[in-house]
């Protein structure tokens, strides 16, 4: 794997996020290693027990979390394309998904017969996980904006046997506005927002090169617009999970602080099977609402995973 170094501005930010020297060194070390091979059993097609039995014939597999038997780790080195070329993958028995990326849907906790929106759905890892938890019952609107991304999403939905999804191609702000105008409110919404991807350094080392602070600030503005429209589409008492694969507070706590300032929402505690650090209440010159400490920062060095941010909001009353 090509080795890229951190840009000085990025390194300075990370050191600020991880003031403990050993902690930062552990982070710097792990982001230069490839990610572990996690897959998620697709229970729409096969039980975790049966899948594990099949996979054990070719690989060393373990289920690291008792409460989530669908999360499977292939605990060995794999050849190029080996995980994607297995018959079980072609049959849609599992989805190749990094463990952090599974956390948003665990936080969302979808149930059968709910009306759920997945606003930035492609390539469909979380969409297929939502449909799985819904047992294909209820309605799932899976939205993305670009045609190329829709094709990947559609292919993954088919392969995973998702039958309760409606795929839409719209700007998420426009989609939420139209649904809100018709009074069509969702029980649950997943907003896995477009982000600067600081948490994906292990699987996508080019992020080292592509990262810049201007992009972080631009994305932060876009994310606030998205969450504002998403909240308006939520039923009173409904749940919105906001997640990103970045560590930048501008794209994480700042967005949740914005939601708390402008809407009648509260931040919920989340119980996840990974080590989480509480959300930050200060960054640069900004101070955030103390409620943001209930959000989860997932760091690669804590879990031998990628990096992630997850938060869960409940709408308390009608928006005036």
């Amino acid at each position, binding site marked *: 794997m090509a080795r890229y170094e951190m840009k000085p501005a990025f390194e300075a930010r990370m050191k600020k996020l991880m003031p403990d020297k050993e902690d930062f060194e552990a982070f710097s070390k792990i982001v230069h290693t490839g990610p572990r091979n996690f897959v998620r059993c697709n229970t729409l*097609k096969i039980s975790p027990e049966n899948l594990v039995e099949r996979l054990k014939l070719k690989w060393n597999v373990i289920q690291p979390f008792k409460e989530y038997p669908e999360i499977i780790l292939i605990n060995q080195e794999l050849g190029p*394309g080996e995980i994607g*070329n297995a*018959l079980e993958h*072609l*049959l*849609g028995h599992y989805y190749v998904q990094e463990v952090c990326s599974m956390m948003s849907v665990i936080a969302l906790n979808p149930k059968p*017969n709910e009306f759920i929106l997945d606003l930035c759905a492609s390539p469909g890892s979380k969409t297929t996980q939502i449909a799985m938890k819904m047992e*294909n*019952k*209820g*309605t*799932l*609107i899976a939205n993305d904006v670009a045609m190329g991304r*829709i094709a990947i999403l*559609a*292919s993954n*939905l*088919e*392969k995973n*046997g*998702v*039958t*309760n*999804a*409606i*795929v*839409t*191609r*719209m700007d998420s702000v426009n*989609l939420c506005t*139209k*649904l809100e105008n*018709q009074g*069509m409110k969702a029980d649950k919404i997943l907003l896995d927002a477009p982000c600067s991807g600081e948490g994906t350094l292990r699987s996508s080392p080019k992020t080292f090169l592509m990262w810049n602070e201007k992009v972080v600030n631009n994305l932060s503005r876009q994310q606030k617009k998205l969450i504002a429209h998403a909240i308006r589409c939520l039923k009173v008492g409904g749940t919105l999970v906001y997640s990103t694969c970045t560590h930048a507070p501008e794209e994480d706590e700042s967005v949740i602080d914005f939601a708390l300032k402008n809407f009648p929402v509260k931040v919920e505690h989340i119980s996840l099977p990974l080590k989480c650090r509480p959300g930050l209440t200060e960054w640069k010159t900004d101070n955030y609402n103390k409620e943001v400490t209930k959000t989860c920062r997932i760091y690669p060095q804590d879990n031998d995973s990628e990096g992630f941010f997850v938060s869960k909001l409940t709408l308390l009353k009608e928006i005036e």
Partner: protein
Amino acid sequence: MQINFIKSKEKEKILEELNKQFGINEIPFMLIRGGNEKIRGFSGNLTREQLDKLSQLLRIELIGIYLIKNEHENDFRPSMDGIHLLKNQITKNIIEIDDEQFKSWIRGNDLDIKTEKGTFIISYKGDFIGSGKSNGERIFNYVPKDRRLRK
């Protein structure tokens, strides 16, 4: 997007044919006609009226899953994923293949198997791996490209 719902009488006819061909006796989905003679199945809990309303409101690309292809009149071929969804009902026109045939089939090749003309479900060690059409001398491969093993 104009949603072209398949009416219950037509659904009955489709089911009758699928029953004759494969033993299928229930399609637990709302059926929608898509492009290229594809029939899609939707298991969501919205009514036709709600779906129609939604289609006027949103830019819908797809609903549900591609289940069956209506090749010709009274000729229906289940898609790879349709087969998986209906697998517990499929009892007829199944061809079991061996290791060598599997390696070839999953790479997108046709099978040189002499059989009656018609559509067959291909099975390998208990897994249904798509459908094929036979001309009597050869079974033509319909495994979608993105579901094949790379050569």
